[in-house]
């Protein structure tokens, strides 16, 4: 079976290569081939042996880390819907409802995104990079469940073309593509992305259903939150599809940190920055968002999800070790700052991360520059001494 498959693929590739017209599609076939088989290529220069790790393995690890949050999000979509209607349905049915809503979004995201990625790979003649496997899943997970599919598609196209390919493709982008997609949808289609009619499935069509996010209520200076901290932690609250559960984000964080794929420094930095800023505001305590306990700030909204899966994107985050600490802490600080001071955007974490994405190269610049300065000082000292 394995051999037969291998034989078939080799045959197809041979045909493509020998045809002048079709040769440019080799990267597209390679993308499928290398998905089935890690290629037999051997080292030609440099180290003769190489680690088993590659970009595919790294990206798939992130996808695996996302799965708990995704599955919970599917269930919670059903749960929010049925509990508002007062219907008693089984767990499986609840999940199935959410699956039915969310799966098409994921399908659209991958279809649109990968088509563009393959197109650019063929056009530019390079291999298809695996980064979109993660972005393509993240994008629907950060959207409200009722958003029309075409908006998902347009947001994906915007993110891949403008935020990624325009900068030179994978590894070159300044902003996190998944967050760019969300920000695009947020500003382009605000009525579908905020308010109290979008967070629970069918809220806009069925009168019995409504649901404001906790941060939305707080931003309206309504401090009467019906949810317990346990609801917020587990995630049985309205919100974007996969952002609600801090618990699932923590499971994801565990996978990312254990495998070394996600930076624990950034995550911890965010936590420190967010907790500290929240605490300062608690002490000041002027409005509902300020008096909202700092530890609850860390488990509502997209904070946990954003910190674990978005802030740690290595391409758009700071790259140096010291830089990662600074970047992480500032993401935490700005997240709470934006939540408190700008009630129009109760979800601060998205904007905080995008803002810090822009400043990450500057942070790195100063960290690296400190090393350069240290070295030059040493040179001068050596020269002075003789």
């Amino acid at each position, binding site marked *: 079976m394995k051999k037969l498959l291998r034989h078939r693929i080799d045959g197809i590739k041979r045909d493509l290569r020998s045809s002048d017209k079709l040769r440019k599609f080799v990267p597209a076939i390679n993308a499928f081939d290398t998905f089935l088989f890690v*290629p037999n290529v051997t080292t030609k*220069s440099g180290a003769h042996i190489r680690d088993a790790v590659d*970009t595919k393995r790294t990206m798939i690890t992130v996808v695996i880390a996302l799965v708990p949050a995704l599955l919970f999000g599917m269930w919670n979509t059903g749960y929010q819907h049925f509990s508002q209607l007062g219907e008693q349905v089984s767990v499986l049915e609840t999940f199935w409802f959410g699956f039915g809503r969310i799966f098409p979004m994921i399908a659209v995201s991958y279809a649109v995104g990968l088509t563009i990625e393959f197109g650019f790979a063929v056009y530019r003649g390079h291999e298809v*990079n695996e980064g979109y496997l993660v972005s393509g899943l993240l994008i629907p997970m950060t959207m409200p469940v009722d958003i029309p599919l075409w908006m998902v598609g347009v947001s994906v196209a915007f993110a891949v073309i403008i935020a990624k390919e325009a900068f030179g493709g994978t*590894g070159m982008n300044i902003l996190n593509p998944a967050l760019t997609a969300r920000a695009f949808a947020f500003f382009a289609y605000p009525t579908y992305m905020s308010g109290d009619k979008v967070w629970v499935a069918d809220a806009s069509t069925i009168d019995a259903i409504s649901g404001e996010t906790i941060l939305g209520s707080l931003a309206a200076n309504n401090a009467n939150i019906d949810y317990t901290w346990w609801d917020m932690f587990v995630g049985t609250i309205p919100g974007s599809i996969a952002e609600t559960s801090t618990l699932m984000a923590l499971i994801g964080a565990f996978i990312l940190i254990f495998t*070394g794929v996600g930076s624990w420094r950034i995550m911890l930095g965010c936590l420190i920055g967010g907790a500290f800023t929240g605490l300062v505001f608690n002490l000041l305590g002027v409005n509902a968002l300020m008096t909202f306990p700092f530890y609850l700030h860390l488990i509502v909204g997209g904070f946990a999800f954003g910190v674990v899966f978005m802030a740690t994107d290595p391409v758009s985050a700071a790259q140096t070790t010291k830089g990662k600490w600074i970047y992480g802490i500032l993401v935490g600080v700005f997240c709470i700052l934006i939540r408190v001071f700008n009630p129009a955007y109760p979800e601060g974490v998205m904007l905080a991360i995008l803002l810090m994405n822009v400043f990450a190269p500057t942070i790195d610049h100063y960290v690296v520059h400190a090393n350069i300065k240290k070295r*030059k000082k*040493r040179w001068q000292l050596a020269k002075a001494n003789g």
Partner: protein
Amino acid sequence: MSFRYNLKIDSGADIKIKGQAALECTEMPPSETYTIKPGNFFYLNSKLLLKEGDQVKKGTPLFFDKGNPEVRFVSPISGTIKSIIRGERRRVLDVIVQRDEKQNALSFNVPNINKGSRQEIVDYLLKSGLWPYITQRPYGIIANPNQTPKAIYVSFVDTRPLGVNHQFIIQDKFKEFQLGIQALSKLADKVYIGLSSDYQGKLKSIEGPIFYSVSGPHPSGNLSVHINRIDPLNAGELIWTINPEDVANVGKSFLTGEFSAERTIAVAGNVVHSPKYFKVTIGHELLPLLKEANVKMDQINRYINGDVLSGEFVDYEDHIGYLNNLISVIPEGDQYRMFGWLPFHDNAVLSISRTSFNWLQRGSKPIEVNTNLNGEERALVVTGEMEKVFPMDIYPLQLIKACMVEDIEKMEALGIFEVVPEDFGLIDFSNTSKLEAQEIIKSGLELMIKEVG
């Protein structure tokens, strides 16, 4: 006597490969031909002194360094120049000497090692052909005899995969080693000798050099790491390095007045049935060693002059390199692995990443390796992984990028003077994007030599 410096290196990774050389040494009969390759020296521009058919004695200069005409490369044995192989643009690749039975050797006047001046010692090393043993930092090229380094480093610590035991190599050359150190002490104010932190032996009884200890995972054995920790190289400064066995070669030459080209070389790797050491002369044929070490020859192997991270390809019908003490032999890869990219799949494949359970086995027993790339080259995405295997106060990714865009000012500022390609061996091995870091650094160094000198 305790160590002056104790270097504790914490970042890096030990790669234990099956087939580590056993501590036994076989003295090999001389081979038919001996080959000296200018290509064994980084950035060497050689000019031939002889032609095919010429008779040579042991110690007869074969070619010299165009950049430093005093630096001569001499024949390790007596015989006839059998052939000269040239490559692109008539660059000399191999000078092959056919051995004869006469064993004629050139003899040189040995200066007094205690009373002789520095210049007398330098002249002797140049004349007798010993000079190419000395490597210079920055750049990792042959030392310039007209300059004085701030220190000379000799390290007995070898943490490379399948790395050799330098104490074993010089165990019956203690006197020669001591003499060699005495000669080197004339060339620089300071001579450093690096030993492993658990070293017990008589080396420390040698008076003069400064001893330091090293512990920790690879690349803790790399000299760049030692220099970076003890007394980093500044712009305009020089450091010289020399292998322990070559220190003994220098010492022996002071005893005999002849060029000394002894080489104890380990043949190791996971297709070597009896990995062990061989006592030969520089330029020896490779094949007899492979046969003697029972290398599995009925399959396609990769033969490497040096270690598996930064050594050079060599054909099994070719000859051993000039400076290296290690021949690594591993099987070629060329296997497809179905769904091999799944995390925690194919855990037998060597990996220092936590996306594989290989670390569970790696710690306990040596592992089998091959030359599969295990993926394809991709855009740089993952950050922070290079720093994990680079224990120096240098930002490796930033330095690599500066080399890629050929920004000389930035390369200098980020520490290009302090590194040689081998320091990036583990980065080559472990980086997710399969970036060829050593090649990039190599071209960066070449650019530096060309533009800055």
